[in-house]
């Protein structure tokens, strides 16, 4: 009963989230563009940019939730998929600069001129087209996840070993992208963007549009994740999480079930990165930093994994906290984050959403109990007297000793 009630509650919560995201996608740009800066309702441009960035983080956290929350794959490398999507978008934005760079080269981005490149590396071809870059935003993280997952899941690497190799994956990419001869701008990464689709990336209208795109994309990702999780495949995903070998003996290929979720999740993370880069104006190898991926896990844990809404809330809250903290006490942020993670793991193992649910569940049970008490005081007395009266326990063990409930054998 209560399981069903919470399921219905969870569905309503997800529907509300989708509605709120779509509403915000319309309202925030309006309040920024159409309202006079002197009005109390005006949303300043820097807030639009900041919250747009948070929405990208929320999408990244949601993508992790699909694999971690629903399939038990604790990826400590999701930042890599995010960064790859970001680089694909960054390459498009670099090509849009054209001859407006410092060196004025119409083909080569500044860093290539500086590093004495004579021509554009082959893997940069096509990135002057938005559609091609968009395709790569999906394909590159998706393909990496597919190949990585193919080997990892087939050889049945699970648990902490899998987490470690995902971490190694993002670290390897970090080192690779730091190299100047990789052709991705090395240490400095890609920056100084001018236009996206012909619009100035710095303009308020463009920022608002990017904000709206992020909110809509997040809403869409919620819809897709919700549909996946609600399907028979989604039930399998959770079955693999809870009893992987059972699914195998039923004839399911657990490795394929994981691989599909992992690939979809990586594509979502890539989209998040692609929306992030034009809003922050830079992508550099720092995005591959292993600690970034670990932060994503913290967001999801704080919000409550396996709930779709939880990781979104976690990402928004933790990042808002981070912005506030780095303004007030910058040197303490990492301690605060670590402390938060420890506190959540110990005190709120199911995150904010889990706490909310159990609080609501308790309130409901209390209300039901008080109603029952009002209605059936006599019944209660009658049943109490019909039972043999228990003497107060002298030690705590006694209650369970006299408990007639059969115990399940393990």
């Amino acid at each position: 009963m209560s399981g069903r009630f919470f399921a219905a509650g969870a569905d309503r919560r997800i529907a509300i989230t989708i509605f709120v995201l779509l509403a915000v996608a319309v309202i925030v740009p309006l309040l920024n563009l159409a309202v006079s800066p002197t009005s109390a309702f005006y949303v300043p441009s820097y807030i639009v940019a900041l919250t747009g960035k948070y929405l990208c983080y929320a999408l990244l956290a949601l993508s992790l939730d699909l694999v971690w929350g629903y399939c038990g794959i604790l990826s400590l490398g999701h930042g890599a998929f995010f960064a790859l999507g970001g680089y694909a978008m960054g390459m498009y934005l670099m090509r849009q600069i054209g001859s407006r760079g410092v060196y004025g080269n119409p083909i080569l981005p500044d860093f290539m001129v500086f590093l004495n490149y004579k021509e554009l590396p082959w893997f940069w071809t096509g990135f002057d087209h938005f559609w091609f870059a968009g395709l790569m935003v999906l394909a590159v993280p998706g393909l990496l996840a597919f190949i990585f997952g193919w080997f990892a899941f087939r050889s049945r690497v699970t648990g902490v070993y899998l987490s470690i190799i995902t971490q190694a994956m993002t670290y390897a990419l970090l080192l690779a992208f730091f190299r100047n001869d990789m052709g991705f701008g090395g240490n400095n990464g890609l920056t100084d963007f001018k236009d996206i689709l012909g619009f100035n990336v710095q303009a308020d209208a463009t920022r608002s549009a990017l904000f709206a795109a992020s909110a809509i994309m997040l809403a869409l990702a919620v819809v897709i994740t919700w549909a996946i999780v609600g399907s028979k495949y989604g039930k399998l995903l959770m079955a693999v999480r809870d009893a992987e070998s059972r699914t195998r003996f039923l004839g399911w290929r657990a490795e394929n079930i994981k691989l599909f979720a992992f690939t979809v999740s990586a594509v979502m993370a890539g989209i998040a990165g692609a929306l992030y880069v034009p809003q922050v104006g830079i992508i550099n190898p720092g995005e591959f930093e292993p600690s970034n991926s670990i932060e994503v896990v913290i967001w999801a844990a704080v919000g409550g994994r396996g709930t779709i809404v939880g990781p979104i809330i976690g990402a928004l809250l933790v990042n808002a906290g981070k912005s506030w903290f780095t303004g007030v006490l910058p040197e303490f942020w990492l301690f605060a984050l670590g402390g938060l993670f420890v506190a959540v793991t110990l005190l709120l193992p199911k995150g904010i959403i889990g706490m909310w649910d159990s609080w609501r569940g308790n309130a409901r049970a209390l209300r039901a109990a008080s109603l029952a008490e009002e209605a059936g005081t006599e019944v209660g007395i009658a049943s109490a007297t019909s039972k043999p009266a228990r003497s107060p326990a002298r030690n705590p063990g006694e209650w369970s000793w006299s408990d007639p409930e059969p115990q399940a054998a393990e």
Partner: protein
Amino acid sequence: MSKSNTILYLDGVSVSFDGFRAINNLSLVLDKGEMRAIIGPNGAGKTTMMDIVTGKTRPDEGEVFFDGQVDLTRHDEAEIAMMGIGRKFQKPTVFESHTIEENLMLALKGPRSIFPALFHRQSAAEARQIDDILGIIRLGDKRRELAANLSHGQKQWLEIGMLLAQDPKLLLVDEPVAGMTDAETEETARLLRDIARDHSVIVVEHDMHFVRELGVKVTCLHEGSVLSEGTLDFVSADERVVEVYLGR
């Protein structure tokens, strides 16, 4: 010996874990349509034998054939399950965060690839099959409850129900009545006898009363090989069986 009329044929099978021979030159033959009870002391290798048949453990040597011609040592768990071998674990293993109904739905015979599962809509025929199984395992009134809330005995029944949903040719049932009341145990014996009418079944059990209820040929394993085989009366009269198992 001819494999032609056998559903399961093990010959000279051995497997070691870190030098310890859990299965030692084991030979065991199950005819098509037969139900067999397997008994034996703890650590005799009963569960390991099932691991070998279902592809979880690869034997170091020996032949394992299904249905007279399929070499099971060349296939993995999912392939073997799809050929028609179903298994109930010693410790009941169901999907605790799913409802009874959903557990059966995931077990139901059908395609096992991702995309059909993504776009799956339950058909009337599937709903009927699930209803039938719920009736057989007596969990109809709990169909929407989470499997985590079931008692130990009910989980055993749900797992048997999942086996039925899979509709295998051969069922391997590891200790189905552990944690059940006497009434439930008798009920389970009746259910397995029913199933055995049109399936081949191997049942591992320690409960002699239950084994007697089944009324089938018994194999006693000890230290990874067959110690004695025959009717229950014959096996329980065997001095070696009394010494290593029944006499304790």
